[in-house]
């Protein structure tokens, strides 16, 4: 009986320790970790990263330099809206000769409580122009030109 009486208390102590440990680890890891690693800009992922960073920072001149000439020829520039808390992770990259497809997972979090965010998978397509990879189509949030999303 005494053993029985101690059981929920012991379970509670174990659970509380697990929670405390997770909280401490999460705080340490999240706060000590630096920003995302810079990827070599000669690879398709590297171009996607540099282009997306420029779009998020509203540096449209830099972003433009990563867009393919074919798209820029008929470009009607899209309306710009600030992008906050956009997270993007590479799922896979497929290179087929002079074209490449980078599949990404996007997560758009709102500023307040963490539950109200949404995530989805989308694609970047790139073409090789003069030895460099250039962005052809992008997820809708990161389009430089209006018609960019419909090409490819």
């Amino acid at each position, binding site marked *: 009986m005494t053993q029985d009486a101690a059981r929920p208390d012991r379970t509670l102590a174990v659970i509380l320790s697990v929670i405390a440990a997770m909280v401490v*680890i999460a705080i340490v890891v*999240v706060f000590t970790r630096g920003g995302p690693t810079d990827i070599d800009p000669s690879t398709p992922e590297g171009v996607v990263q540099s282009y997306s960073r420029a779009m998020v920072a509203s540096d449209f001149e830099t972003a433009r330099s990563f867009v393919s000439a074919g798209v820029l020829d008929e470009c009607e520039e899209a309306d710009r809206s600030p992008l906050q808390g956009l997270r993007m*992770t590479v799922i896979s990259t497929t290179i087929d000769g002079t074209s490449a497809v980078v599949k990404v997972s996007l997560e758009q979090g709102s*500023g307040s409580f*963490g539950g109200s965010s949404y995530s989805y998978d989308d694609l970047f397509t790139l073409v090789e122009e003069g030895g460099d990879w250039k962005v052809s189509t992008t997820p809708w949030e990161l389009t430089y030109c209006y018609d960019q999303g419909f090409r490819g």
Partner: protein
Amino acid sequence: MTSTTSSPAATPAVGGVQTVRRFITYALLAATVIIAASGLSGLLDRLFTLNRIEVSYDNYGLATSLASALVAGPLAALLWWLIWRDGTMARDRASILWPVYLVIMSTVALLVFTIALLSWLADAIRYGWNPAGLAIGIIWALVWGWHFWMWQHPAKGPTRLQGAAPALASLIGLTYGAGGLVSALAQLIDAAADAGSRSVVVSDPLWQIVAQSLVWAIGGALLWRWHWVRLGVRNHTFGFSTVLLVFITGIGSLAVFAFGLIILLSILLELATGLQQPIASLLDPLGTAIAGAAVGALVFTYHSRIVAERSTGVRAATSLSTAGVSLAFAASGFGVTINALLATSSDPLLAGNIRSLLLAGLSALVVGGVLWWLTWRPREASLPERVATPGRRVFLVIIFGLSALVALITLLVIGFQLFAFLLDGGSGESFIERSRQALGLLTATALVATYHFMIWRKDRASDVDIEPAHRIGRVTLVSSGTNTELLEAVRAATGARVTVLQRAEPVTREPDVAAVVAALDGVEAAHVLVVAGAKGKVAVIPLVS
């Protein structure tokens, strides 16, 4: 034996074809009343705005209003006359369909008329006097008043579902009142924060926005007070009113309070750990958070005092609900914390705002955890008097049910992402990236279920009689008055459904509560007739069903 069959109140309504007849007539009455009211309000609206509309080609709109009012109106009157006749009402008064019709129609009418009138008043503050829109409020207020009069009618008002319509109306009033107050306070706090951060603000004058919210706050408060105090919903012990009291205290107000506090804490934590986003967007929910916490606390404190005066069952249900709501917040917070931790395992192209996610999760964990600790009191969770709390088993079963549901959904999501990852041929980190929300929630649910499973096992092992054994299914009690104390005592002692039949002529020296409860001790039957007789005599008659 004093018979009560002469009173129409106690005569059970005849079923069969009569039920179908009642259903059809009440449904038709509801439809015709709604159509007639919309037609009349359309016509009245035209009357009010007669000299304001300069050019109008809306003949079809006028034709619709005329048809609705002149066709549905007389039909509604005819149907009502058929229903309200003494002969019909004597048969229908005890039917459940009569109060159901009244509850639905009075609640619909109340919602339409209060929303129309309060928005009209709020608009009048902003745009000045404009009679358009007022007509709907007036016509539906009359519909509501008419149904309220029928409800209260001494000879024809319903004998069942007493207290349901006023209880719902008081909840509507409380929602408007609390919502209006939160909105007014939030506007003031946000304005102060804007002034402090020197933001450029483009909006209407502050007094106007606050006054608009105050219209809802005051209107709601009046509506609530009239039902709560004047009509006595505060003291009702009907099932419906009691459930509502437990919901407002243990779930609604506590959730608003905790949510406000969580957002406030997450804003403070972000300010303390360095900004990741612009200050204006960080402070955006500040006003609503503070106002929500304050008003939630106010509503909770007020209703807790009323709960404290109620029966053990009501008190236990409220305290278990508060523990459940707090636990839900704490578990979600832990889930979000795990989610943020897992986010660091992958190397993204863009980092997003993982720090804000973590701080929001920690805030929910801290606020929910502290509230849970205070309401559940885990150190005393297995004391015999706690194990004997009525409804504790129901609470544990609900926790297991919800845990199973969350586990099922999260496992489905994780399974889907696992197969998608295998078929996509993506990297391992993309699997964790895509299923980290589900993994976080699953971990939190597993911890919650484990803890409560241990509590369950401990309860089973203890020799405390957890729930009173139900030896009696139904009790029909014949007494001189509707003695709520006696009713509650019989209900508490037997756990049975109790119906009271009131004597037409009161008897002297009826037995006291203890005598009636003692007479029921050891009786075992599906249905028991208890007659509280003269000179303290109690007759207990077990029936077949």
